[in-house]
């Protein structure tokens, strides 16, 4: 069936069965491959996108449930200008293989939208679902702390990675 949705501010129409998960609509029908498939069963959060501003598992969200709510993906997070978290991610040189990072960023962005200065416990709660096999967690924590402290834009670019 023909379904309309708004992704990153752009109206889209896709031909898809209503139960098709948003993940595959984004990746296979719209070519927005920044949203990642990692498990398909809500256990890794690589597929995190925002629907109506809230972080959701795109792998568990049927396209029919999106309705008129706007969808934001990693491609739309810093479209005009890098999101403050993306700047912090660069400053801490977070990404390794990078595959989980869109999901990590989308979870962190939703956290900061709700709690601009999150506590450690709030960071834990918001990010615990996002699996990373490269072990970028320490740098993710530092990057979020950097933004929470208002220092996101310092162009340090990880000059102190080694001691």
């Amino acid at each position, binding site marked *: 069936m023909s379904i309309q949705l708004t992704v990153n501010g752009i109206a889209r129409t896709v031909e898809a069965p209503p139960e098709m998960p948003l993940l595959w609509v984004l990746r296979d029908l719209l070519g927005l491959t920044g949203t990642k498939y*990692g498990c398909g069963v809500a256990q890794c959060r690589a597929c995190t996108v925002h629907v109506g501003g809230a972080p959701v598992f795109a792998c568990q969200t049927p396209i029919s449930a999106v309705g008129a709510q706007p969808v934001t993906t990693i491609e739309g997070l810093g479209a005009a200008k890098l999101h403050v978290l993306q700047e912090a991610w660069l400053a801490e040189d977070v990404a390794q293989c990078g595959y989980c990072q869109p999901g990590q960023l989308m979870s962190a962005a939703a956290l900061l939208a709700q709690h601009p200065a999150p506590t450690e416990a709030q960071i834990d709660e918001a990010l615990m679902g996002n699996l990373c096999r490269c072990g970028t967690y320490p*740098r993710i924590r530092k990057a979020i702390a950097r933004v929470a402290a208002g220092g996101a834009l310092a162009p340090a670019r990880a000059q102190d990675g080694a*001691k």
Partner: protein
Amino acid sequence: MSARDLYKELIAGRSAGSQARGRSADISRRTFLSVSASATGGLLLAVSCKGKDPSPGAASPGAAEPAADVRPPPAGAAAELNAWIHIDHADHVTLRIAESEMGQGILTALAMILAEELDADWSKVSAEHAPCDARRYGRQGTGGSSSIRQGWEPMKKAGAAARAMLIAAAAERLGVPASELTTEPCLVVHAASGRKLPYGTLVAAAARLQPPAEPTLKDPTTYRLVGKSIARLDAPAKITGQAVYGLDVRVPGMKFAVVARPPALGSSVASFDAAKALAVPGVEQVVQVPAGVAVIAANTWAALRGRDALTVQWTPGTHPQLSTAGITETLAAALRPSKTAGAAPAIAKAQGKAEATLARSKRRVVATYEAPYLAHATMEPLNCTVHLSDGKCKVWTGTQGPTRAQSTVAEALGLAPENVEIITTFLGGGFGRRSQADFVKEAAQVAKHVAAPVQLVWTREDDLRAGFYRPAAMATIEAALDARGFPSAWVHRIASPSILEQMNGLVDGVDQSSVEGVVNLPYSAPPNGWHGKPANQAFPLLVTWANPKLPLSTWFWRSVGSSQNAWMVECFVDELARAAGQDPLQYRQKMLPDGMRHRRVLDEVARLSGWGKPVAEGHALGVAVHESFGSYVAVVAEVSLAAAAAGAPGAPGAPGAGAPGAPASPASAASAAPASREPRVHKLWCVVDAGRVVNPNTVAAQMESGLIYGLSAALYGKIDVAGGAITTASFAQYPALRLPQCPDIEVVILNSKAEPGGIGEPSTPVVAPAVCNALLALTGQPVRKLPIAPVT
């Protein structure tokens, strides 16, 4: 050639049985012989590291970006100085890196070495994966923590040769001797006349010159890039969703395929009924392939639903009785002396009379350790896109072994290798798994049936259940202690299924990868008293290896044999220290003489962690030290025991609804027995001597990465088998560390002028023993089986 040096060769597709040939020498020869005018010249392939402006509206069906960012450059825009270096008229330097970027930062690090000797302006440098071309790059394979170790000299020479060609072109242009010219970043400078020529104005002329055979290399004290912490070139693409991984390859008209796989080990397709699968909208074909039954569809979702709907009758598995407990029994049986248990264990090392000394000794310590099979579980599930048409084949995949992938596809499809083009995308994690070519071969076998490009997608369940695994291992270690408590003999009997056997890679009947970290045991007995011998004395050491037959496929897993052997050795050393009544760190220091690199990292980690000072109530420290891949790593772990907490990765998130506005909770409380306590790792102090370091930032990141990878395995990692089938099928059953459980990590890189060591793997082996040794200190009970069980 040691096992470690073999890894890269094997990954690249060389048969272990063939004559070893130094790859470095091979490459440096090619560097200077195959300059310019190649068939691939000017074709810019694969992933560009420079971030692109994210354009949310850019992608649409049928109008997607060409796959993997394949961009033919404007004609004549860039000239090639050698296989690695292209420069355009605007001085933009494009460096083609023949190693695969899987998170370890190799595109950036090798680009730094090239740019250093080229004297390039770093702000004008981008890096990308080189095409698969053994003629120009040698066999391409990334693994064994070898990229910098083996690429260091050839990349320096390639950069320096290109710089010399630019200088020679400038000398001709200016009519001055080359000896009067120097360079500044992307400029050739004639100081006497004050003239400066940008590289971009010289590159066309330089490309026509003969490269020098032995270019002059920079004095390392003048390095501008190497040794500095430089941000990764691939970071912008990876935080904007623009980086193209194998699964992100989109080619017009492409199809998507998943394969229904046998439920049990050794099972295969008996028959199948495709009707219900073909009834799923979007499903286009159902075909039998060697791996099972492939469902080919217009999109991934349809292929997955088609696979769910498919009816397949499978033949019975070959090992219906095999279980996790049976694996343990098989390993244990291989350690028992028996005339009927098949081949006798092979002798991997026999130094002195270890058994005789042990038999005479009054003071002995013995322990048996067991490590499980492990999956790699890369974040990006395995995948490969193949387009077969007109007798040629184009393959897009994230592979650690492009050359192996090329020969595998060529063989599977009956093509000449030169008709198989391999395009290496970013890898969403490798850890050794992506050096196998099974998924590439499968994709080729599916593509035979499809008149369009087709992307084979492995699900997470496929990844865990149909994989290649770090072999399980069991070892019984027995030591005799002298009057002071130091070893006077060490007998180490290992049972672990071979990795190298499948490549005809046993040497004198021994898989060197199964015994690495043991045969090179670093410890020696300290001199006995003030009037004793002045130097430490090696004690008798016997290492045997048995190769039990189990049906799980084995493969290289981050740090290979060291991943289990360092755990066993270092835990046993703590047990010895305990028997000797000595502090485990000081005990090691006495067995590692001054001047040893092991000792240096150990001393530094003792200082850094405040070893010996009081720790928080209920906490304890554990230490371990190990060399692998030419780098030396010591770790101290601070550990406590806590009641199994909410959010523990044992229950990382119930599968369930994630409806908008009511997202499913990403993690739910664990339901562990209330009496059990789990280790909580608070802090890891890590000291590494990796020789000369190219990018300290990357080295620190890889130390963190390896520790966390090893900690996940130590705490949670195991592959379970029941009824002859692998039952571990999801991240719920194969948990990994999550952010809340991640310890604080402090990394110190020691200054060293030694040759570069590996960095991708050497921190992984050390974390499990450090944590287990802390638990031994806390509880008095050794941990002899992984993963670490809750303490009750």
